[in-house]
């Protein structure tokens, strides 16, 4: 009876063994890469909008404060998205016939809302509150990036839980003085470790509160 396996079988088997070993890591490595890539997270991908609103122009160029449009950021979980009327405080006088702003004018005329594509969106089982973050010294740019440099807005971070926990586990790394909250240019100073620790105390984030920050119930209900 002829042999079932030829001589080459040995080599094929060895190669298979080795590639299975590396393949395992390669597969999970690939999964990891895709998981953290901007393909999945949409991090850094500018989103098309019906009205190509530029934060760069309005914030860096004109110097509008974040709270001019995002009015409830200090009061509510939701920072607020400006109603058409807010846009019209200026655009009823300037750029009144710009084609770019046609949806805006139509919205006002027909009383139908504008449609924006969400840029920063959390899953439905995550409950985030803007007001408490702003109150406890987390500035806009910490999570949203330098919005004043974005012609079309994109997501600055993955918004994954690991990324949230980086800060919840060590808030002193990102905490800033209250007068710097809306400063887009703020970056942690060289002595942030020391300043941060002091601010944590000033904001009444005690040791007990720090442990609460890591509870699941902080964000999941």
């Amino acid at each position, binding site marked *: 009876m002829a042999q079932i396996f030829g001589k080459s079988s040995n080599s094929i088997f060895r190669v298979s063994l080795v590639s299975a070993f590396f393949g395992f890591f390669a597969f999970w490595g690939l999964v990891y890469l895709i998981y953290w890539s901007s393909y999945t997270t949409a991090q850094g991908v500018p989103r098309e909008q019906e009205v190509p609103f530029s934060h760069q122009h309005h914030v860096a160029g004109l110097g509008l404060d974040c709270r001019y449009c995002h009015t*409830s950021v200090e*009061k509510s*979980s939701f920072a*607020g998205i400006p109603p058409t009327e807010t846009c019209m405080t200026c655009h009823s006088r300037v750029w009144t016939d710009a084609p770019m702003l046609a949806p805006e004018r139509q919205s006002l005329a027909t009383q139908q809302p504008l449609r924006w594509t969400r840029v920063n969106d959390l899953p439905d089982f995550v409950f985030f509150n803007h007001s408490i973050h702003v109150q406890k010294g987390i500035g806009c740019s910490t999570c949203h990036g330098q919005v004043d440099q974005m012609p079309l807005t994109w997501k600055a971070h993955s918004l994954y839980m690991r990324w949230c926990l980086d800060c919840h586990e060590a808030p002193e790394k990102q905490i800033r003085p209250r007068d710097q909250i809306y400063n887009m240019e703020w970056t942690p100073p060289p002595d942030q470790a020391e300043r941060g620790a002091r601010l944590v105390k000033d904001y*009444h984030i005690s040791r007990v509160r720090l442990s609460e920050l890591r509870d699941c119930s902080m964000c999941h*209900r």
Partner: protein
Amino acid sequence: MKDAREPQVKAGATPAMDLAAMRAKLNGARGQHYWRSLEELAETPEFQAMLEREFPAGASEWWDGVSRRNFLKLAAGTLALAGLTACTKQPTREIFPYVKQPAELVLGQPLYYATSMLLGGFATGVLAKSREGHPIKVDGNPEHPASLGGSSVWMQASILDLYDPDRSQTVTHRGDISTWALFLSDLNDLLSEEHTTQGAGLRFLTETVTSPTLADQLNDLHERFPKAKWCQYDPVTRDQVREGSLLAFGRVVEAHYRFDQASVILGLDSDFLYTHPERLRYTRQFIDGRRVSTGKREMSRFYQMESTPTVTGTMADHRLPIESAKVEDCARYLAHQLGAPVQGPNTTLTSAQQQWLGAVLKDLQAERGRSIVIAGEWQPPIVQALAHALNQALGNSGKTVAYRDTAEANPVNQLQSLHDLVDEMKTGSVRALFILGGNPAYTAPPDLEFHQHLAKVKRSIHLGMNLDETAALSTWHIPQNHYLESWGDARAFDGTVSFQQPLIAPLYETKSAYELLGAMVQQQPTRSDYEIVRDYWQKQRLWPEFEKSWRKALHDGFISQTQAPPREVRVREDFDRLTPTGRTMSAGEKKPAGAPATQNVPTGKQAPVQISSTPAPVSKDTSLFATPQKKQVRIENLEIAFRPDPNLWDGRFANNGWLQECPKPVNKLTWDNAVLMSPALAEKAGLMTNDVVEVSFEGRAVRGPVWVMPGQAENTVTLHLGYGRSRVGRVGEGVGFNAYLVRTSNTPWFGAGATLISTAQNHLLVATQTHHNLHSPDRQIYRATTLDELRTQPDVITKSVEAPEEDQTLYNPEEYKYEGYKWGMSIDLTACIGCNACVVACEVENNIPVVGKEQVYKNREMLWIRIDTYYKGTLDNPEFSHAPVPCMHCEHAPCELVCPVEAAVHDSEGLNLQVYNRCVGTRFCSNNCPYKVRRFNFLRYTDYHTPNFKPMYNPEVTVRWRGVMEKCTYCVQRIAAARITAEKENRLIRDGEVRTACQQACPAEAIVFGDLNTKGSKVAELKNQPLDYAMLGQLNVRPRTTYLAKVENRSPDVKDQRPVSQPEEG
């Protein structure tokens, strides 16, 4: 007499459970023997099997015809695909800003509005919560006198009616879709016709009206059309109370009781804690008079006689099951003994009854001026009058009982009013009938044949929220606003003027009664209900500055100090000699001769109950599957009693899934009504729960399943109204049987002479009474004591608790220190009345789905808090006790240790969390939960696709998906909201700032939640009370929810009970 009641022939069907054996077992039992169901007492094999398991058979397995091989294939496939489900990208979503944002609205923050909900015509003040413009929750308005912050099940569940996709949405004309404009043109034709006859053919049929504006509109129409008539009919009528007041005082007044100031309370078939219009206030005050949790050692003693166990009856220290008709005799006995000018009992009372009444009498005499006698709405006028006479004889009037004018705009005998209307409909003199709310084609007494005569009326206009039985027979149907979409006003039971204001624009083309009547007066321009109500109040000139005061009234939801005026009344000396038919009624209304009496008052010469059995007619079905021949059992001369359903009321909530599924107080029945029957009668007749019987009464019959109800009066069967709806919507149609079919106009609430015939049919009734049972005779799940015992041994409960062994835990005692907040809950078992308000409140707050009858049968109901009702004592007259059971949030939680994916985890404040996005559905946790409080989404129960329901969900709580475990969270979203508010103000959360949904809803304030580390917090104080105990505390799981043992105030003169805290056997 006694012999005649014995069954003549031993009846046919063998009961599945042997009631006689249960009886013997209970007689032999010593000490505190609690039981929850007949199944438990019978120790059926099924019940035993269920106790052993986390879920009953079928609840956790998939047995629907999948072979082992196929199962393994599916399992492999599932495993292979399971990982892939996580590989989805988050979908891109849109966001829609306002065009013009309302100034008061902060996106993401709730707004609260004070408005009023009406039931039985009376207003209860509510605070409705709105998120981004849609109402999501309704709770009691703490400042409103009829609520005091408490809720009823109906109030909590009313939000679902707003979003009900089966609501009527357009005007219909003879069943076809039509428009309001077409209706108006027809209305104008009608009005021009009626102008010539001064409205002789115009009739208005309303429910009980307390609204000043609506009454004003109707009076206004009466001026335009002097011959038009206004009739009122509410199936849950207070006719007996009105007539009783006329009989006793010669005028219609309402009695108002101060239960908190009474030492002895006697209920004559009264359900004042659940069905009375003042239920929430009475609950609070009744419990305040009995609250011993704060160290007080005084409480009122409550005696109740009733035919069927009610919420109120379960709270009694001594409860006497007695036929409804016998209540009059008991009242006469007492009144006679107290020297009131009345005759003694019509029949002789048994010695046991006399002994019981003797104890009542002794207590009443000892507490003159500090007692209350209250008669139920079901009792005939003479019993109402006897109760008034008793209160007067005891010197209670002006102390614990006050009289006020009624809040009703036009108090009439409603049954008579409907009767007169039908008489006119018969003769054809009614040319146009406006039915403003209500569903008389379904609720009217069958002998009036309202539905037949309605079809003959030339123009009938029905205003209602559903395309119901009446809508189907009416010429025009106008969809009605929900109260959260409508402006309006009404009076509370005490007369306080209360306002309704809308939280949302009408979802459909709906109208309110105000707008419909308004259109009869003025159509150009159409006046909205807002203008109509506002104009009415502006005309009243109540306030010097209208706009300011009007806004304040709307803000508060009511106008304070507008109670009906108090009246000093004396009971007429001769009331017992007056006959109900011989009197003049309220002004201008005469009862024609020959009209039916208000109540079929059974005489003393009642025939004894007869049970007989005959062989069933021979079936022609010779196939293998023919049911075995049973003997037909016939029971005659029974008393029949009707009651509004504890969930569906008169049927108006039939399409409300929350209410259909809410386990009814006492018997825990869901998705059905039943013929409630006493164990003694069932035993004699050989009937058992689920046997379908035919109930015949006054020549009419209806079929329904039997439910053997411990504590039911022996010869009374009780039928609950509101089921058997033929047209209401997808949820309520065909559920249960229609008890209205045998509720004739002679017998609004009870009557003698009903016949019951067994059938060969069976109908499966599903009750949650056996579910999630913690059965264990030696564990003392439920603890109770008496006031006397507590006075002599303050530590009676503490002593009885077996101390846990501290080292018996798998937890590292150092792991959690709880230095911040330490949340805990205390539930007062003396205060819990078992009304279910917490259960429904929890469903609304936490987006808990309805699962349906079949799933409830499989023990898959999703309720996060359940109310376990325990029975103690005999089958015929058990004591009832309620224990609300939410998640205990154990410090040494057994569930957490077994979760393979850490979905059940602890937090630093002691909350026992369930992280839905981690849960993979192994159900190990619920298997390990000693309290059986975890609920698993076996199927996709939550409806996330019907657009109507989307705005109803609480946006602060995750909507769970299939395959996920869930349970009570201590309303963690409310803790989070309070924490953020407090942190922003750099302070700690104050005591009382976080209230769980169940706590907020509880009308009795039985549930207290708070931080155990806050010095002097209410919950910490309660946990230091000697009555505090942990359910299953001996397991050393250290539950954060603990109970305050029930305290009863027993009379030493009633010998119907065993002492409560004898040592346990074994």
